C-alpha cells in the first residue's frame, strides 16, 4: 500500500512512550520554573510587609501586619466562614444563571440575524450601565437579601458569556456548515453537532471571565443589599468591619474574597482542561 510510510510516521507520534516520559520530566521542570519565582516574590513581599510595618511603627488601624490578619481570621473564623459560605452560594447561583441565560441568548441570536440585530445592542447597553447604578434599583424591585444579590451577580457575569458564545457560534468554519447543509441537516442539528462544540473554547473563555466577575457581583450586591450577620456575606462583613474599625478583619474579608475568586477560576480552568484538553490548541502541551 502506498500509505505505509505515511502511517508509520504517525504511529511513531502515537506510540513513542520514551518521548512521553521526557515530556513529563519537562513538565515537572516547567512547574518548578513557573511556581518557584512567584513564591519567592510572595515571601519577600510578606516579610517586607510584616517587618516594615513593625519597624515604621504603623498603627494597626492603618495597616495591620500579616500576623494580625491571620490572628483576626482565626479569632473570627465562625463569622468569616459563614460570610464566605453565603458569598459562595450567591455567586455560584448568579454564575449558573449567567452561563445558562448567556449561552441560551447567544444560541437564539446566532440562529437568527434579525434577532441578533434587534437584541444585541440592548445587551451592550445593559453592560455599559454601571453596576452600582443598577444595584439599588434591583434592591428596590426584589428587596434586600439573597434574591437581589443573585440577580446582581448574574447581571455582571451575563454579558461576557453572551458575547463570547456569540462570537464562537458565528466563527464556525463555513465549509463545515456547508457540508452539514449538503447532508440536509436541520438548523438545530448544525447548532448542536457543529456550532456549539466549535464555540466551546470561546464559551470557556467567557466562563473564566464570568466566574470571577460573579464573586465581585455578589460582593457588590452584599455591600448594597446585604442583610445582617453571617447571612450578609463577605460584602456585608466588609461594610461592618470598616464602620467598627476592625481593620485586620476587614483585610481578612478582602483576602478571603480574593481566595474565592482564585478557587473559582482554578475550578473553571480544570473544567476547560477536561473539555478541550484532547483537541483544542489552547489546552494542549505543545512541544514545538
Amino acid at each position, binding site marked *: *500500500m*502506498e*500509505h505505509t510510510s*505515511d*502511517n508509520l*510516521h*504517525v504511529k511513531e*507520534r*502515537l506510540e513513542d512512550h520514551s518521548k512521553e516520559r521526557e515530556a513529563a520530566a519537562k513538565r515537572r521542570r516547567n512547574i518548578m520554573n513557573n511556581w518557584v519565582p512567584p513564591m519567592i516574590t510572595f515571601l519577600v513581599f510578606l516579610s517586607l510587609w510584616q517587618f516594615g510595618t513593625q519597624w515604621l511603627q504603623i498603627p494597626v488601624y492603618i495597616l495591620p501586619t500579616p500576623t494580625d490578619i491571620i490572628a483576626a481570621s482565626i479569632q473570627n473564623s465562625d463569622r468569616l466562614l459563614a460570610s464566605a459560605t453565603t458569598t459562595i452560594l450567591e455567586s455560584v447561583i448568579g454564575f449558573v444563571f449567567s452561563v445558562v441565560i448567556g449561552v441560551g441568548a447567544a444560541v437564539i441570536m446566532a440562529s437568527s440575524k434579525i434577532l441578533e440585530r434587534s437584541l444585541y445592542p440592548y445587551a451592550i447597553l445593559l453592560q455599559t450601565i454601571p453596576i452600582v447604578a443598577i444595584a439599588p434599583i434591583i434592591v428596590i424591585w426584589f428587596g434586600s437579601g439573597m434574591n437581589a444579590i443573585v440577580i446582581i451577580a448574574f447581571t455582571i457575569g451575563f454579558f461576557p458569556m453572551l458575547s463570547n458564545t456569540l462570537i464562537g457560534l458565528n466563527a464556525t*468554519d463555513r*465549509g*463545515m456548515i*456547508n*457540508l452539514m*447543509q*449538503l*447532508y*440536509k*441537516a436541520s438548523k438545530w*442539528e448544525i447548532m448542536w*453537532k*457543529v456550532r456549539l*462544540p*466549535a464555540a*466551546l473554547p470561546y464559551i470557556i473563555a467567557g466562563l473564566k471571565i464570568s466566574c470571577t466577575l460573579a464573586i465581585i457581583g455578589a460582593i457588590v450586591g452584599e455591600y448594597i443589599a446585604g442583610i445582617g450577620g453571617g447571612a450578609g456575606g463577605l460584602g456585608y462583613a466588609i461594610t461592618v468591619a470598616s464602620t467598627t474599625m476592625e481593620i485586620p478583619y476587614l483585610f481578612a474579608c478582602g483576602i478571603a474574597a480574593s481566595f474565592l475568586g482564585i478557587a473559582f477560576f482554578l475550578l473553571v480552568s480544570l473544567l476547560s482542561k477536561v473539555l478541550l484538553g*484532547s*483537541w*483544542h490548541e489552547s489546552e494542549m502541551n505543545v512541544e514545538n
Partner: protein
Amino acid sequence: MKSAQSIVQEMQPEEVEETSIVSMRQVSKVFPNGYTAVENVNTSIKEGEFVSFVGPSGCGKSTIFKMISGLISPSEGELEILGESGSDQQQQSNDVGFVFQDATLLPWRSVIKNVMLPLEFQNLSKAEMKEQAEEVLELVGLKEYAEALPRQLSGGMRMRVSIARALVAKPKLLLMDEPFGALDEITRQSLQSELLRIWESQKMTVLFITHNVFEAVYLSTRVAVMTPGPGKIASTVDIPMPFPRTDKVRTSHQFSDIVGKVSQDLKF
C-alpha cells in the same frame, strides 16, 4: 491487485449501464450582482465515469459543482441529477458524496465518529453506523486509526478520512472539489492511485475538479476542459488509457500526448 483487475473486466463497456447520472442542458448561472459564472454548459455524465473538470481559477468549475450539489440553482437551462431535476433534490442527499480541498473534519471527534457523521441523518442503529464506518475506514487504509483525533494525523491521512466520510453512505455520485490541492506531490500521487482503486472497486461515478492537468488525465475516463470569462466547457477529451492505471502510465508517451492536447485546449 488481482481483485481490482477482475472488477475492471466486469466493467467492460457493453456491461456498463448507459444511463446518465448527471445531465446539463444549456445551463447558465448569473449571480444577483450580474456576474455570469457559467454560460450554456451542456454535458452528460454516465454511470461509472470518472470525469475531471480542468480549468483556471474563475472558470466556473465550483459553480457547476454547487449546482449539482443543490447548494445553488441554475438561472437558466435544465439540470438533472440521478434522474431528478435540480429543484427537487431533497430525497437524493445520500446518493451524493462530497470531498472539499479542506478535509473539514470536526477536531473534537475521533476519526470513526467523523466518518459516522453523514449516517447520523439517517435512521440507522449505532451498530450499523459503526459497521459501515469501519468498512470504509478499512477501504482507505485507516482502520487502526479509528480512535485517533484529526490533529494526530498527517494532511494526507486527514484527506483519507474525508474521503471515507464521503463514501460511508455509499453514494452513487462522488463530487470532489480540488481534494488534493493542498497536499504535497508525493502524498498527492499516492492518494490519486488509491482513489482510482476505490473508484474501480466501488463502481461509482466521480466528478473531480482540479487545475492540475496531469492529475486530471491520470485519473479520468474523460476530461472537461473549461475556459473562463464567462465559464464554459471548451472541449471534452476522452482518455482511452486502460485501468488499472499504474504509476508507469504517468511517464508513457500516450499520457504526455493527452496532457499536451488538454493543455492546448486550455489556451482556447
